[in-house]
């Protein structure tokens, strides 16, 4: 697969400088988030994404605070998923996709040559819309990531990682007696939690979730949301969702995308009670402008 990267070295450096120049403090590249007081995990500036000739994202700049949940909302095709997939370079896999702009993860440009996308994806885990466990055993599903990255020295350590990950994903008690059963045999909600466990197993810093509950029933959805609430103690979570109620329930901050542009970003309570932009209001109240 060819890397379709259009950031020239100059622009990347310029962006580094810009990012370093703006915030003050001892850790210059990580300004403190205005919401939760945590540091910003991701700083993205002037992001433009193209699919061939078509531009999917227009000049989006967004900061994502650590240890909190950022929800990306917007109508279908607004670029929120595309933006999300830029954060772990999943867009690299699409030949015609071209990404411009600066993405700093803890101050490191993830599109520079220093970070390999394979390692980046271990650090920035992802959970997809449809639960997609590997057609292997539950144990193998969770152990796969740590194994390919060499995170466990021996079997005992691997067992430990699997158990902790499943516990964190609130799935351990349900599957501890059948770790050899196929992951695809679980219920939809359990499968999604297995996918979360799989993502956690590589000890990521960020977890990206692309409509993680859209294929689940309300009870399973509630479980996932409860899990997200627990996970945000330790992880930076970015979630794309079509359900406004879900965004309102789980997130600390919400960003509204429309036609590839970031229209408004702010604390969730403000976005859902008194949005500043009319477009945001029309969207979240179910009007069409």
């Amino acid at each position, binding site marked *: 697969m060819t890397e379709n990267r259009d950031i020239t070295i100059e622009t990347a450096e310029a962006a580094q400088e810009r990012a370093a120049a703006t915030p003050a403090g001892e850790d210059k590249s990580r300004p403190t988030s205005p919401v939760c007081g945590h540091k910003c995990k991701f700083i993205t500036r002037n992001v433009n994404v193209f699919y061939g000739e078509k531009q999917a994202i227009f000049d989006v700049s967004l900061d994502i605070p650590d240890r909190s949940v950022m929800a990306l909302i917007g109508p279908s095709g607004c670029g929120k998923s595309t933006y999300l997939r830029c954060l772990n370079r999943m867009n690299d896999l699409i030949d015609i996709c071209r990404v411009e702009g600066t993405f700093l993860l803890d101050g490191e440009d993830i599109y520079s040559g220093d970070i390999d996308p394979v390692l980046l994806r271990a650090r920035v885990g992802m959970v997809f819309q449809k639960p997609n466990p*590997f057609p292997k055993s539950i144990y193998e599903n969770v152990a796969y990531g740590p194994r390919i990255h060499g995170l466990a020295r021996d079997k005992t350590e691997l067992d430990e990682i699997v158990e902790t990950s499943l516990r964190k994903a609130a799935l351990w008690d349900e599957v501890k007696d059948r770790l050899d059963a196929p992951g*695809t045999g679980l219920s939809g909600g359990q499968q999604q939690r297995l996918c979360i466990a799989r993502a956690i197993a590589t000890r990521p810093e960020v977890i990206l979730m692309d409509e993680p509950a859209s294929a689940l029933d309300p009870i399973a959805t509630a479980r996932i949301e409860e899990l997200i609430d627990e996970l945000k103690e330790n992880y930076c979570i970015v979630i794309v969702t079509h359900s406004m109620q879900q965004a309102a329930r789980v997130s600390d901050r919400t960003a509204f995308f429309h036609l590839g542009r970031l229209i408004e970003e702010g604390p969730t309570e403000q976005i859902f009670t008194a949005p500043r932009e009319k477009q945001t209001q029309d969207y979240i109240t179910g009007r069409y402008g």
Partner: protein
Amino acid sequence: MTDRTHNRAHEARDRAEKQGASEGGAAGPNGRIDWHSPQMLARLRRRHAANRRMKFIGLAAIVLAAGLLSILVGSLLKSGLPAFRQTFITLEFDLKPELVKPQNMRRGNWRKIVKEGLLRALPEDMRKNRKLRRKVLKIVSRSAPYALRDHVMENPHLVGRIIPFDVLASDPYDQFNKGLIPEYIVRGERKRPNPKLGGPEVVRAFRVLKEQKRVHLPFNWGLFFNADSRLPEAAGLAGAIVGSFLTLLVTFLISFPTGILAAIYLEEFAPKNRFTDFVEININNLAAVPSVVFGLLGLSLFIGFFGVPRSTPLVGGMVLSLMTLPTIIIATRAALKAVPPSLREAALGVGASHHQMVFHHVLPVAMPGILTGAIIGMAQALGETAPLLLVGMNAFIPDISNMGLTEPATALPTQIYSWADSPERGFVSRTAAAILVLLGFLLAMNALAIWLRQRYSTKW
């Protein structure tokens, strides 16, 4: 007042109906559709009739296809099934040392031993009949002395004894025993004994043997375990089966890894550009090239240019692998394409590299489909005749003991071709039987493909 309004409403409805009728049963004036207008019902009838017509035509097509197939299989079974049984005659042979010549059995007078064995079984008057004595050997196969010789050579202690031994009936008597040829040929007014049976006295002698219950009709294992022969009653498919197996082995070893790797590269790694498009189109075209052309290619390239020995399973397998390759590539690509993108995303999402994704996740899931495609390609190769004929793989192999990849060989379809070409009456049913055997192998391979698909396909 109410009466009048009621009447008016009635009139309105009547008018609406008339109008609806004039508009072909569509919407009435107030947007109401009359679902029960005659036009509507007529149209409904027409639509149902069209449904029934379509169903009938489809059914007729299936019946026709099934009919043709059953005629084919039926005629094959009719002419082929008798060949699955073979007439044997049990006789006692006196292994006199002077005839056997124990020092060098190959030089023994086995013909005489067999002849005496035959005569021993017959009553006195027949034994003395000169005419019969001359022709009595017509009853048994010409291979019978050699079979007896081989048996005794394997068991030398039998020399000097009188042993019972089953000998093959000759082809005419085998056919006669199965009722496939008549004793007399009737042409208009004239009725004359069938010349193939050697004369009435020989037929009488055979009848006597039959009355003595010396004539059996057991399952014809020889069809599978005998090598080819000029004598229909002794001819078997062993050489062809071994040859086909060796050829397919070569085909599989060449086309399976090559095809899968080519498909994986094209599907998973190759950049999408003009060159790969060109390659893809050509692979698809290759699958449609007539097999004779591959044969010619093999003849000129492998035999003519590379000097691969002709008539061998090696060159046959190479030619067939050329033919199978596109099938395997196309099937493999289809199987890889069918792997849901969510699985690829899942693998990449935890940080698997591209080749880890392909070999750890995509390939195992696609394997049943790939194997199915490969087996179907192999089955196709198994049934292919023309390219094998062109590379000379229709050798006459009377002995299977020294078959090898670089030894001349024959294969099932070419064996069928050779037998179909032979003039002997016995090869007619032998040919049909060989076709049935080939079909049986093909069915088995397809069943294996289906089983693999069922067994290993992943449920999503």
